[in-house]
């Protein structure tokens, strides 16, 4: 069942957002929906076809469970996404330099790098990127409680 749910996830995500968008467009009157209304109807029709096809394909499959390799791949991707979210959330609080060093160091070690290599490389990379973006390109990167 999990396999089917995952397979339908992109369809439901895109389809669900399209329904929201269509309803929002209705509030704007005729001018808001010259293009979006017919496009939504086409999306609804195609979505129904994809849904029916995915269900039929799932029913035909002998192995309906998620394999160990698939789970591992998904877990790794989930870790990447979670780490990215935490990193983005930490930027304004910890500052760019500290948050980036921690993110890189943790990432390198998680993927199998030696701890001292990871630490040195993450400090060097964070410093280089901070220098280029903050001073060479004048991008207002976040400063942490210590001013960097």
């Amino acid at each position, binding site marked *: 069942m999990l396999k089917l749910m*995952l*397979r339908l*996830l*992109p*369809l439901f*995500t*895109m389809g669900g*957002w*399209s329904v*929201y*968008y269509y309803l*929002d*467009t209705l509030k*704007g*009157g005729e*001018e*808001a929906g*010259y*293009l*979006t209304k017919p*496009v*939504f109807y*086409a*999306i609804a029709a*195609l*979505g129904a*076809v*994809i849904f029916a*096809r995915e269900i039929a394909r799932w029913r035909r499959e002998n192995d309906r469970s998620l394999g160990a390799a698939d789970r*591992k*791949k998904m877990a*790794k*991707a989930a870790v*990447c*996404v979670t*780490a*990215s*979210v935490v*990193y*983005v959330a930490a*930027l*304004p609080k910890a500052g760019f330099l500290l948050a*980036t060093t921690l*993110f*890189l160091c*943790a*990432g*390198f070690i998680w*993927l*199998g*790098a030696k701890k001292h290599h990871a630490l040195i*490389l993450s400090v060097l*990379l964070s410093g280089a*990127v901070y220098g280029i*973006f903050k001073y060479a*390109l*004048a*991008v*207002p*990167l976040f400063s942490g409680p210590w001013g960097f």
Partner: protein
Amino acid sequence: MEHFFSGFAIVLQLKYILFMFGGVFMGTVLGFLPGLNAAMGIALMLPLTYTMPPLDALVFLASIYTGGLFGGAVTAILINTPGSNANIATTLDGYPMHQKGESERALGLALCSSVIGGLVGMTCLILIAGPMAEAALKFGPAEMFMVAFFGLTVVGSLSDDVIKSLFSGLVGLLLGTVGINDMGIERGTMGSIYLMEGLPLIPALIGFLALPAIYDLVAKGDAGQMTAQRVSLKKLWSGCCEVFKHPVQALLCSLAGVVIGIMPAAGASIAGLFCYNQSKQFSKRPQDFGSGIAEGIVACETANNASEGGALATMFVLGIPGSNATAMMLGAVVLMGWTPGPRMFSQYGDIIYTVFSSLFIQQFVMLFFGILLCLLATKLSRISVKYLAPTIIMLTVVGAFSSGYNLFDPSLMIGCSVLGWLMKRHNYPVMPLVLGILLGDIADAELMRIFQSFDHFYEIFTRPIVLTLLSISILSVTLPQYLRWKRKRASKSAV
């Protein structure tokens, strides 16, 4: 045309030479690293171009693009893994040649073919871009809408699964219309001020295209990374020279590549496979194709590089991206304040022709870096995923943040990356979605103008250009299907 020749004087200044060397080097390295490509390089370097003048930025980004085209051929030959879709056909004869112990010959053939294909492609770009733009200036809302429609009709041909491809393209079209429209009506912003001006393009593109590739790279780990290969300069050079034994094939495949590249989203992969198959059919020894022969590599590498000249023509003249990399470049053009479309070419013709001049020089820079890359392939291939992946993720977050100086953009990028990864995993093609996002706004605005200018929608079909574009749109739907059928046949017979 005078802009083109005077452009040489400009781009031969030290500043532009440095941009070209830096860009081609970066593109070559990114194209060479499995999982990465020129589109990602352009995405990563976009923040660097925010403060640059348009010419500097375009020369730099075009150089990354040029370098990325050859880089993918190296992995295709050495580890049977195309660096990008464009190099799929290169594996068919390149890898068997490498297995026979003729890696240098294969790399030399690919490098020289890429340069020849690139030069033919750029020549065609200069010859056709002007007339295309002149005709395009006669475009009103009806014609502009049809151009957007033309771009959208190809979404069905971007994947084997036409239904999913259309579904993705249409959702992209809706995403492209998010924000406040020309009538002042707010749509799909969910109350966020960051979406009022539309979906932030760069974070969305990085999220949909670049990050899912990194997640896959992390999942695979270091498996499949290149083992040490020694490359001899002498053998490499003799491989380069061997291309000149097949001049007619190189020229014809280049021209075919340009024609296929002009069709938005038909792409370099179809160009490479189509020309590989045609070369095989017209060859005196078709049975040898797939066993590691020079003609196989010449066919696909000239065609895929030449197709990018066609793709750049549609991007610069019509504002329609033909590949992920040109989509990224179009994003950069939008950020410069240029409006994609036919008028872009007349307003900024001097800058665009100077970029064309630089594209010529970039081919020779690519030759230089290509030789270096082949020689240093072993060392570069040792960059491990464990160092590469976190660094790329960090750079994408910084890139997305730099596009708007707010945290909404990196958050949106991560959200898009999850959707992009799920789509990739479940065979929903992402390119139609990206195409929809880019063309949605134009299609929506022009359709509204049509309803304001005409009593009925069908009146637009009385205009000759609209009818011509409609015919081309129909062709663009049917021709790729035919090409795909040919590609399938080529793949089957190659196996």
